[in-house]
């Protein structure tokens, strides 16, 4: 297996009930797992806020990701806990974000019915997207001629040049990042086992993508398929491949 990871399985979506210990009614906790970056969850008060998800049956998680937040402006920390039957146990040590780059944290797989996201802040924060569940690990990483997401900046530039030839100004319109998700030399068995479920998700919703969780763990993109998702094709005997154009956000 490679170090390329996709985070799309979201236990918050699958939970029977998700409750926040503090919530601004105009910014309910449901906004954290609708995959939209244009609406937010906000607690009513600062301090420690728990978002508790109760599932119908035990499910496994080994990644935790979030994006679209201002925790870094409010002295925020965030962590995930699982309920072992008698107490909550940390999945990983609390993270202190320093900016709004998407974060994708992997941890030892745990299986539980009750999960809890614990956020501590000195003032009221905003959070757009939370996701945790079972990560999808690609059999192979990205190939040559592929652009790492943070380097695939898509921008529109508007220059101002005077009649006399002087440079007067420039505007930049950020259009996120553009790259591709390359699935190459994936075994028939792997594609048949894992790919359809991912495609069903990606047809509808965004996902987290870490091309190299070991070598470049901070290069995370919150992204979505930019167009129809191409079907995988046999590229070699016993192996399949597909390239999905994606657009996303890295800041």
């Amino acid at each position: 297996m490679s170090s390329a990871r996709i985070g799309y399985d979201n236990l918050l979506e699958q939970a029977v009930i998700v409750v926040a210990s503090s919530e601004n009614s105009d910014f309910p906790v449901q906004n954290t797992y609708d995959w939209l970056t244009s609406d937010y969850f906000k607690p009513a008060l600062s301090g420690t806020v728990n978002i508790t998800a109760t599932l119908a049956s035990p499910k496994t998680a080994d990644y935790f990701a979030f994006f679209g937040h201002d925790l870094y402006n409010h002295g925020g920390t965030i962590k995930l806990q699982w309920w072992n039957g008698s107490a909550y146990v940390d999945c990983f040590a609390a993270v202190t974000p320093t900016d709004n780059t998407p974060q994708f944290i992997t941890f030892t797989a745990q299986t539980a019915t009750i999960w809890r996201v614990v956020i501590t802040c000195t003032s009221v924060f905003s959070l757009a997207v939370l996701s945790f569940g079972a990560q999808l690990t690609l059999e192979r990483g990205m190939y040559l001629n592929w652009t790492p997401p943070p380097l695939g900046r898509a921008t529109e530039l508007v220059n101002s040049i005077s009649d006399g030839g002087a440079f007067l100004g420039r505007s930049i319109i950020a259009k996120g990042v553009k790259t591709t998700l390359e699935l190459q030399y994936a075994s028939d068995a792997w594609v048949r086992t894992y790919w359809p479920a991912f495609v069903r998700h990606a047809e509808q919703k965004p996902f987290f993508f870490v091309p190299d969780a070991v070598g470049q763990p901070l290069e995370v993109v919150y992204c979505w398929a930019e167009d129809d998702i191409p079907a995988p094709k046999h590229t070699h005997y016993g192996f399949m491949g597909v390239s999905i154009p994606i657009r996303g956000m890295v800041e």
Partner: protein
Amino acid sequence: MTTYDDLRIKVGRRPITVVELDLDFCNNLYGSSPCTASVGVTGTQECFNCFATCQDTANFDRGTKTYKFTEANSFLPIGETIYPCITSVDIAPTQLKPGAFSVSASVTVALQDFPHHDRGVDPYWYLRFYNPIEQGTFFGKLRARNPNVANRVMRVKTGYVDADRTVYTLTRTYFIDRIEGPDASGRVKIVGKDLLRFEEIAKTKVPKLPTAFLDITIGTAPTTVNVTPSGAGANYETSGRLAIDEELVDYTRSGDTFTITARNREATTAAVHAAGTPVIDVFPNTSGAKKIVLNIKNLLLAAGIDSSYIPYSAWETECDTYISPFASETAVAAPESVKTLIEEMLEEFGCSLWWDELDAQLKFKVLSTGASATASLNDTEHILKGSMVVKTLEKERITRVQINYGILKKGALPNSVSTLTRDTENTSISRLYIDTAAENPNLYGGSIQKTIVSRWLSYNAHLVSGNQVQKIADRYLARYVPSIREVSFSLDAKDSTIRTGNVIEITSRMLQAFDGTQSPVKFIVTEFREVVPGSHYKYTALELPA
């Protein structure tokens, strides 16, 4: 601390456009006092806190809810619900039109509809028996819940996002004209208009059409009389001036009882008025000279324009600089539209009135050539490459001005209500002012006349403050005798502090003197359009002769 202007001049600025709609939203909570609505009693489900779905309209407490939209942009402020669904924003700016209502500002926002979960919109989303994201669309539901959106406030904010995602913008204020769509492709169009496009300004008549009638015949002396039908008196001022048949009278009123305090006002003839004769409020409703800005203000208020949009003291300062407070006196006794009456004053006194969408105020300016420039522009440092166009407006030229005025006659001359209309035959004085030099064969070689028929210029305006009639003619001749040039050009955002109505100086290779030198030429900005939001601005300006 960062400001809008810091970002405006910064290389590498990040433009953003945010459109806000203020739609009606009830301040009450469903079923909580004073709201008496109840599921199963007044409706099958909770309302949506808007009037169209209200189940207790008597207790509907109208407030506003602001909906925010922006263009697709990956660098947006965090923590604000701003729907990124705008596909284009077309801002048609105010065009200053000398001597008339400005061509109104408007904005057209195109948006793409989308499914929405109703959180943050429907206060009772968690109580619904359906899943809102699977039922209908954002704009489909918004329109059904808000069928009446006309004249609600909308704002277009254009500006920049700072590195910390704080948004700094300029705000343009409009009023919703209509929302169209969503169509079969999910496209939605929101059209905003400026205050001067309110239908009420064209529809409202001043003075009001009469609704009260004398209940008895009255003689020629001051008297007290009741009007019919019962309660009709309330449609009139508590004191002022009335037109009854051909006579003007002054009155005070209590309920339906009018006490006529003075007869045969303005040299009209006291006469017997039969029972059933209509009584008409006259505008202005007191005698004597009135500043034209006061008349304009009162007409706008009569049309229902909120006084907060009228910066009256600034109007007064501008007006007093060029127009004597004693230059205007009239009586309007036949109902005319507010728009017509205001446009008459603007033309006759050479003024402009326009909606400044950035300041959210109605601006008034006398079109004088004497104003000093507030900014200087040149080809090298300001005007964008290939954007400057100069044209000469030959058709605007005039060489003489004829002014007919004095409809409300003074002294021994008689007046009657039916001769108070704007008609050359009703004017008592006519003056002709000629620029003889301009009519010399070496210049135009002919005469081009502008004729003004004024009901507003007072009978003795030529005797007031150094001849107000001649001053009006001089303003027109000074502006329109020389060749009038109109320029259009574009500027970068760094120079975008110039606005409609500003006087500027331009030095350009396209504005050469006899010897080819480039001397500054003075212009008044008549239009200011943000063609590339946050980046490029297109201007149109009219030359102000030296």
